[in-house]
């Protein structure tokens, strides 16, 4: 065990995989000599060389497309989008080529796409997005979103070992803010939800950075027993864990940092409405970013991203329902 930041845990997973499996190859913009925009691969090129820590041309479609080609001839590419936002330029290769390949042709595409996502530090409209729902809507792509250092490492191992395309949503705001005990060596975190805090009066369902917002918002909520469920995986979605929490708590608040419409939380709400209705003791409440681009200026950004206060207020209102 070692105490690592969320970012160090991601680096450790990549380093372990490169050492353990010669098929693993890292591809991305500025990840080699520079060590990555966020320094996730700092020092890697010295140990693994420029072929396996590949500085690619600035071309996201090409990064995904060539990764698909390398994967189907036996490699295990791990692509870094410098910012999750830039995946829009690689969307077609991911959604149409990688995501549909196995269903159409029976050919597995084992690629991992790392997507540094999320806002909270004045990144503006093109460095702050949470695009996970785009890929939840596209068949054939798994989507994971760790909230802790331990899960960041374990889910990245799981993603790299998975025979399918996996979007690994790593939240930039957690990179150096979150640290925790991380097991040594390679281990797989299952694509299942995790009870971050057990409770009985209300459950807050969240993933990624919003897990921490939810924990802070409900740490002391007038003595209420509040559960926090960390989804960890969005595709597959751990439906049984969600319904179990709903059955136990009867009141649900769902938090997304993403724009509200058709977000991951909307799918969770639909699931509960369809299959957990009888267990509900109040309306399903959602807290999410309104449907606006993420603004740059701190007061504007803070006005749209779900805050500890907004989540606390939503929980308080629902508890009183």
């Amino acid at each position, binding site marked *: 065990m070692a105490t690592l930041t969320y970012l160090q845990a991601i680096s450790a997973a990549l380093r372990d995989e490169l050492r353990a499996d010669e098929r693993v*190859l890292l591809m991305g913009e500025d990840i080699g000599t520079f060590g990555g925009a966020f320094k996730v691969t700092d020092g890697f090129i010295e140990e693994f060389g420029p*072929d*396996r820590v590949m500085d*690619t*041309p600035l*071309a996201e*479609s*090409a990064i*995904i*497309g*060539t*990764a*698909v*080609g*390398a*994967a*189907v*001839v*036996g*490699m295990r*590419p791990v692509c870094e989008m410098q910012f999750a936002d830039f995946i829009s330029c690689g969307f*077609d*290769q991911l959604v*149409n*080529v990688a995501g*549909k*390949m*196995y*269903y*159409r*042709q*029976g*050919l*597995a*595409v*084992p690629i991992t796409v790392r997507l540094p996502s999320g806002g909270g530090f004045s990144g503006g409209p093109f460095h702050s997005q949470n695009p996970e729902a785009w890929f939840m809507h596209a*068949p*054939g792509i*798994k989507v994971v979103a760790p909230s802790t250092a331990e899960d960041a490492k374990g889910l990245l191992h799981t993603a790299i070992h998975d*025979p*399918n395309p996996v979007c690994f949503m790593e939240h930039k705001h957690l990179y150096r803010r979150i640290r925790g005990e991380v097991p040594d060596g390679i281990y797989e975190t299952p694509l299942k939800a995790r009870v971050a805090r057990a409770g009985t009066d209300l459950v807050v369902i969240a993933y990624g950075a919003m897990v921490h917002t939810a924990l802070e918002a409900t740490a002391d909520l007038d003595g209420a027993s509040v559960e926090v469920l960390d989804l960890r995986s969005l595709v597959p979605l751990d439906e049984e864990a969600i319904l179990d929490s709903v059955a136990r708590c009867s009141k649900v608040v769902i938090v997304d940092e993403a724009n509200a419409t058709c977000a991951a939380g909307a799918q969770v709400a639909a699931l509960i409405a369809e299959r957990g209705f009888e267990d509900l003791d109040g309306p399903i409440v959602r807290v999410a970013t309104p449907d606006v681009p993420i603004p740059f200026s701190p007061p504007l950004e803070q006005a749209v991203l779900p805050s500890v206060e907004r989540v606390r207020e939503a929980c308080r209102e629902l508890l009183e329902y």
Partner: protein
Amino acid sequence: MATDTAEPVAGAADASAHLTLEDRIELLRAMLMMRGIEAKAMSLYRQGKIPGSFYDGYGQEAVSAGAAFAMAPEDRLCILHRDLAAHLIRGVAPARIFAQYMGRATGVTRGREGNVHFGDWRLGCVGMVSMLPDMMLVATGMAMAFKLRGEQRCALTWFGDGSTSRGDFHEAMNWAGVQRLPVIFVLENNQYAYSTPLDKQFAVDPVARAAAYGFLGVTVDGNDVEAVFEATRQARERALAGEGPTLIEAVTMRMHGHAAHDDMKYVPKAMVEEWRKRDPIERQERRLRELGVAVESLREGIMAEIEAAAEEALRAPMPDPASATEGVFCEGEAEPLGDGRAPWSGFAEPGAVGRAL
């Protein structure tokens, strides 16, 4: 069309140095099989026995036959929709192709996909997606892996004149040039992208652009199967020698509409008539007749094979509707592409596979 700046393929007009008589017959056979299967399929489509729409490659048979014939078992191919001969050369049985068109359970994609949207991964082939030319990047990635692993292998993909307008064309050409990858890009210039002619597609001929990406672009008569073979054989030699990618512009003509519904009235009649004189199959037949090959009996044998294959496909079951939601994700190990059939005699020589020559 070909430009002054592109280099012609040396020796393309007389490729017999690298082709045995059996090879030359095999090339004709692949083209006849492609044309026959597609003609039969068009007829089945008109009878309502093939759903969706139907696309063929009438007049372009030499491009896929010639290029695929130069590829070794361990090479990998990303095949476009007017390139049926490539599938045949790699070893896909005609009955599976008819079943594919009909959406049957025994088709190459088990009813998941239609038309020529297939590739038998066990034979080293990946089927296209409709967003063109996405597969240029996939082929580039295959070549990247080959180079990283130090393997003597090559990737090849076909794409059309229209798709050179899209960004993935640039991204693939650039990436392949920067990394000097063993990839062959076969630009199938068939004069029209659906209804859009070349002069509305680009200001600079794509083959001339190869130099801008740092590698060789060559133009070849896309209606001469042996010339296409020779251009590809040379490109493969260069790729395996570490000399990087080649863009081959195979100049041809799409003699049918974009799909079954298209009467191609936007194409001048004189242009069609002119190209009809350059039919790739008639050309190869003439060559072989002069060498004493019994072309007619070859043709008859192929037509009988095609009829039997169509009958077999018509008897095959449709897929089980309950299976429609199955197989979105791979549950087991990811298996990489397998090796395909490679009938060129050059690969049968001792030690030939994996070498340039």
